[in-house]
């Protein structure tokens, strides 16, 4: 996303009081207990192993760590992960 566009979007979000994820394509992570996790606005799977799932983001990446992780469902921009989730890590 060009710099000008991002600045404009940022400004719009602030002025119109919109959630940042809607405007800026930021990841939105919803976790239910330690057993289910939904990530929206991801940009693809970088690595998947039983203990970690690394997802590409618009900027940087997001790593879900845990045990016996299973991708229950995956679409072009959302993932539903189940398993024993121990951590969510964001790298920029």
């Amino acid at each position, binding site marked *: 996303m060009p710099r000008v566009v991002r600045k404009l979007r940022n400004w719009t979000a602030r002025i119109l009081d919109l959630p940042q994820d809607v405007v800026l394509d930021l990841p939105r992570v919803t976790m239910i207990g330690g057993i289910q996790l939904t990530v929206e606005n991801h940009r*693809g*799977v970088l690595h*998947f192993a039983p203990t970690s799932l690394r997802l590409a983001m618009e900027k940087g990446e997001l790593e879900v760590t845990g045990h*016996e992780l299973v*991708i229950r469902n*995956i679409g072009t921009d959302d993932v539903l992960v189940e398993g024993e989730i121990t951590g969510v890590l964001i790298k920029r």
Partner: protein
Amino acid sequence: MKPIGGGKAASDEQLADKLHAERMSLMKGNWLQYIRGIVTVKLIAGDADVFLRDAVAELELWDIGYAPGGKLVFRVTVPDFFRMRPALRRAGARIRIMDRSGLPFQMARLSRRKTFAAGMLGFIVSLYLLSTLVWDVQVEGTERIPADQILQAARAEGIYPYQWSFRLKDSSELASLLAQRIPGISWVGIDKQGTKVTITVVESAKPEQLPPNTPRDLIAKTDAVVSRIVAEGGKPKVIRNERVRKGDVLISGIVGEGDRTQAVVAKGEVLGIVWHEYRIVSPMTTRVKGYTGLEQERSYLLLGNRALQIGGYGQPEYDQFEVMPDTRRLTIGGWTLPFGIYKELEKEVQAEDHKLTEAEAKEAGLRQARAEVLRKSGMGAVIKAEKLLHEQTENGKVILNVLFEVEQSIAVERPIVNAVPSVPAPQAGTEGNDGR
């Protein structure tokens, strides 16, 4: 992976795979995926990450996880399974199919089991066919016309058990056809509900059938003087003011003369004056029962055929009383329950001797006698006159002898036995019957 023995390790891995597959198979996918067919695939060689990156962008994968052996396992629909090949090649992957489920595979399995499939189809077809049969025909609303006759007519129109429903005509058309077929019917309704046909019939109202009339005479019931004679059928044999004895022919059922003699039903009205003599004994004292106005109530609880007194204890006893029972049982719908309330109303009674004068006693006796005469003489009797023949007072009683002159119907029917026309002289014939 346990590095024990090659064969053993392989079987362990297979078992673990199987367990894993079972755990995963609790929910394999939604119904859309079920219709398209679900394949559970295991990646046995190649770069899983590369494959996932490509496949997620192009295909629909779900339940992606790792088998205990460390191999990637996922599910994919059948159409996507065939579109997976380029992604596999790019990742240098090889796959093994673990499990197949969903509609296409079940259909394939069914087509292998031909007899089973045929049985299933046969069941559905036979269920459908049996439900299109008419199983039961019922007739409602018949009183005079036997139901069998209506069923027979219905059978002629094609309504009978084990008939195909689709061979029946339209029910309103059938109803009109059936109404034409059965005489004495004003309306027919045919109601088909599922496999049951109900024929509702409304019978046309017919005049009541009179008992069959055989030729007969009207004869006198008692000795009397004829006061009125009207013949509707037959030939009158007596005239007004004529004295008749019991058994005399009043209206003859034999009409015509000579060869044209014919026996008919004698009909008509014959009134006569009849005398009744009565001896009346009327007491001069009467006992009159009256309520004193005192009353008391007792209530009981009914349980089955036992009664438990629940109220009205310690009441005084009356010398004379009448008891009026009132039972109320609990009912639900049409069911009577074995519980209820039973109430006894006890009313005190006092008997009084009422003294009558001679005239009052006489009048009471006569009133009673008149009522009795009228009751005995049948419908339409009228007391024309009454004569007091004798009157006497004795031991507190009035004794009366009264003669009542009552105008009443004196005709009774008597069938003509030796039916004419063979009787040459009708007069002689009837007199012969009377001979007594």
